[in-house]
């Protein structure tokens, strides 16, 4: 799916396409497995130099069987996004310059993997991103700074401080999060009913 036009801090996504490289690092969750399969199909040389890290999506989609069937040189299934990111940190210690990075799946996973890649100095032109599957958002509460994962509604209640937050499109790549702002700050208690905006 593609997202409606938005403000300039909001991430944009493309379609993964094979690029020449010594190594291919592929990170995906949920329906992102389909994007990885398409990538392998369009780049026959990729599999033997590929390392795939995969975890189920926030909606529960687990297409590990698809990944396992691709014949990648290395592929691991992580139990959750945080576990995947620990594996990623280890993999990055040995990553060679020019490694091509491909991120596919939900925005939360893509954003956090991109953040960690950039922190390790991977140049952005070596990172491709394709959104597939869930549109739930990772949102930072601007008040308590706590991050709530898998936000489905707008407004929603901060899982840390309990304030009711509206979800902005303003996005920080450093935090890998959208911004949530108190919706009833001016008239405490005046909270519109939550609308299911992200699924």
């Amino acid at each position, binding site marked *: 799916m593609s997202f409606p036009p938005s403000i300039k801090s909001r991430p944009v996504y493309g379609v993964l396409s094979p690029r020449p490289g010594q190594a291919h690092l592929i990170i995906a969750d949920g329906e992102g497995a389909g994007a990885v399969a398409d990538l392998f199909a369009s780049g026959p040389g990729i599999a033997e130099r590929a390392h795939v890290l995969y975890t189920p999506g926030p909606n529960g989609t687990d297409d590990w069987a698809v990944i396992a069937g691709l014949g990648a040189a290395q592929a691991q299934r992580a139990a959750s996004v945080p576990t995947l990111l620990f594996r990623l940190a280890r993999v990055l210690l040995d990553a060679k310059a020019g490694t091509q990075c491909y991120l596919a799946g939900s925005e939360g996973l893509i954003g956090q993997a991109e953040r960690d890649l950039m922190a390790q100095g991977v140049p952005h032109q070596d990172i491709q991103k394709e959104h597939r599957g869930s549109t739930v958002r990772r949102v930072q509460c*601007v*008040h308590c*700074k706590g991050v709530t994962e898998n936000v489905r509604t707008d407004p929603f209640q901060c899982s840390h401080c309990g304030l009711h937050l509206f979800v902005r499109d303003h996005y920080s790549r450093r935090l890998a999060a959208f911004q949530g702002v*108190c919706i009833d700050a001016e*008239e405490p208690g005046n909270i519109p009913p939550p609308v299911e905006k992200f699924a």
Partner: protein
Amino acid sequence: MLDLKPDFGGFFKDETFVGDFTFANSPSAVRRFPFPFDRDQYMYSVNIEPHVPTRPGSVLEHAFDIDEHYVSEMRDRARVLARDPLRCQSLPHMELAGWDLVELIMESLSRDYPQWFTLERSGNDWHWVNKPLGIDQRFTFLDPSTLPYGPMEYITRQMQGDFTLQDERDGNLWVDAGMVTTQADWSLDFDIGMNFFEWHAPVPLAHEKGIFDRALKFLLKLQHGAPVRRFNWTMTVNPLLDTAPETYPEWGPSKTTLTQANLGAKQHLRVELQSLFRLPRSNAIAFSIRAYLGSFQDLVTVPKWGRRLHRVVRDLHPDLAAYKGFLRNRDAMVEWLSKYDDGAPTSPGIWPED
């Protein structure tokens, strides 16, 4: 620690920007208020001009304006930072730019206000005296171990207004450091690390008008020694300097407290004098955002400003009023201001008597 031993002397006011809000402008501060509207309407534009000293006594007389609120503002900044240290952040590669800023500010202040600030340099051995804040500091330039804070934090704890430092890479500017405690509702902690288009993303209409494309092109050509400036403005209820998104639940309710009886005293026009300096060693750009608060009742004592403020607020594009956070009170403001607009023509320019 930077111990403030303030000396208010005869000039600096002892006042608060929170709680009991004792902040007020003296009659001379009202006369020198940087009224931002040079005509009876307002829309975003690339309003950038050379930052050259002009008009003795005005806020544009010097590179940095130190006014009667200086000491109390620095005390307010220390209060905000004690509560939330994330208001001041600097990514590791920005330290050199911080030293550039130390030099720019210390040289400017000691040149323009020798009665309050002195700087003696002997090679890298520097001696800085800030009399109003009671600071006497010897340090080694470029050696952070000789200052009680990182260089940017050290000097901006002694400077009115917010500061950000922009690194230049990939044909863009990146806001990689800042001291932000007097902001019009934006979060440094959220925005740090963004580029020019990303941090400006929430602004309505200006992207479509190409304003940010042209502004960035202009800034990338900024030369050391040739700073530029622009005005920005918004509205603030009560003289609260720290309108941060972080604390919005604390100050948001004040927006529902306006009546025709209290509006003149409580509603403030908030003007930012923004100036931009290319820094010599780091090639970064320093952005100074100096906020001035003027109550409506003070501003309308200048007949030209009363008339003009009424017309600007009345006719402002609703997207701008919403973005600036005063759509809810716009009608009340217009009603209050209308008493000061007799319909007479106004002269071009921002100055009170021209």
